């Protein structure tokens, strides 16, 4: 467990705090909504409520991470966000397709939802049109994915943040600054086994000491891509869940943990891990847990 000498930013979105020294604020947990297949609104409505209940019980803040895979789903998903989430509750939108990203930003702007939006994500594939749209429809917070296709080490991740690694005209942090997004989370880009998957964890303390920004990743992606685990079906969910503790142990602030249905396993596991980190950080470095920290809930 570590203490960073660099001042650690604590960012706020609609009252949810992300960042700080290890043991200060609980790990924020992003659960994927409409993660696979056709959207099942009734199932996901229950899943979100369950995640919010778990968040209340453990103290770990929950962020629904909405996947929008097809243009035709857009309006229904936006309606669902407005109708299902508590008033002013934050959420993230997780979109790969550049044209859907642009339309989603415009849609969020029209609905006055951008002040609750975490944009997932900015990366080296950002297009000029996306940059322009982001300037016009600026989300409150954005995740920058530090994926460097050439160098997957922590140094490579720093490189794309600092100077774009020749893939963009400037570093991704400078691009976010130019757009005017002030609240930035760094995703250390978890890659498949065989592609330096461990670097996503090792990069967390490096990013935090370098920039002081909240950091985390979707380490569950590594589990999804470990096809050999299919031969150990009963262990697969446990591995998937427990992979997230690496993030908190290395000082990270948030975990994108996969589909909502993993929430029952992930929330208590991460609360347990946060208590473990907090006890040491408090006793050794004097870092006090925040009011909603799992350690305050259960002890």
């Amino acid at each position: 467990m570590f203490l960073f000498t660099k001042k650690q930013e604590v960012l706020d979105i609609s009252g949810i705090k992300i960042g700080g020294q290890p043991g200060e604020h609980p790990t924020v947990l992003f659960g994927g909504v409409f993660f696979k297949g056709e959207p099942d609104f009734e199932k996901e409505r229950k899943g979100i409520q369950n995640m919010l209940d778990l968040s209340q019980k453990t103290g770990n803040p929950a962020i629904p991470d909405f996947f929008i895979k097809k243009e035709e789903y857009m309006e229904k998903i936006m309606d669902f966000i407005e109708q299902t989430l508590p008033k002013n509750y934050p959420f993230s939108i997780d979109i790969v397709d550049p044209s859907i990203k642009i339309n989603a930003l415009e849609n969020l702007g029209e609905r006055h939802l951008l002040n609750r939006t975490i944009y997932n994500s900015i990366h080296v594939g950002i297009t000029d049109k996306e940059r322009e749209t982001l300037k016009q429809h600026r989300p409150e917070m954005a995740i920058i994915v530090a994926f460097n296709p050439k160098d997957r080490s922590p140094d490579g991740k720093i490189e794309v943040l600092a100077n774009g690694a020749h893939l963009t005209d400037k570093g991704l942090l400078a691009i976010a600054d130019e757009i005017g997004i002030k609240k930035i989370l760094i995703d250390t880009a978890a890659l498949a086994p065989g592609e330096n998957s461990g670097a996503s964890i090792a990069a967390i303390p490096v990013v935090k000491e370098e920039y002081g920004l909240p950091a985390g990743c979707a380490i569950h992606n590594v589990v999804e891509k470990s096809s050999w685990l299919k031969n150990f079906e009963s262990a697969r969910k446990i591995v998937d869940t427990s992979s997230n503790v690496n993030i908190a142990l290395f000082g990270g602030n948030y975990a994108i943990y996969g589909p909502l249905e993993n929430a029952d396993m992930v929330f208590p596991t991460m609360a347990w891990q946060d208590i473990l980190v907090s006890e040491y950080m408090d006793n050794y470095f004097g870092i006090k847990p925040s009011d909603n920290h799992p350690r305050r809930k259960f002890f």
Partner: protein
Amino acid sequence: MKNEYYPWGGDFTVCKPDSCVAVVLLQIEYMPPSDVAIFGPLRTENIGIEKIVANVISNPHIRYLVLCGEDIRGHCSGSSLVALHKNGIDEQHKIILAPGAIPYIENLKSKAIERFRAQLKIIDLIGIKDKAKIDKKIKECIAKKPASFGEPYIAIRIKPEASVKLDDKRALHSRIVVNYMGKIEKRGG
């Protein structure tokens, strides 16, 4: 897995080493005929494509690359692979006219890409999930019995990532150290 013919490893199944067909699976549960050389899934439009290129040019018997199934939305990995074969890469290492989100080839030399474009013919069955149709096309390719392309081309990763020697006293990272108390600091203050 790794195999002497396929030194880059990856998530693939090796069948008949001297077959002329490799099959790329895009979101499809499909077992190609056992007389193909190799088959496996493609997920990403950058690292995934690099692996496929490296692993097919190392086996000169492979002359056809069959892509089948449904392309991955946003990533467009299959279409980006087709674009690489058709157009190559630009000075920024970006696949020319690739529709994917991050279609960069960073770990292969241009010679390896040229070899890929020369050695392989793409059989673009993107959008087709009918197994009988895919089987039929594969059989047609195999029946053509094209000659081997010659010597294997073993692609070398352009930039090996930094590694730590045993006598290196760093902890965590070259620029970041952690002291015995657990405080993380920048090296040199």
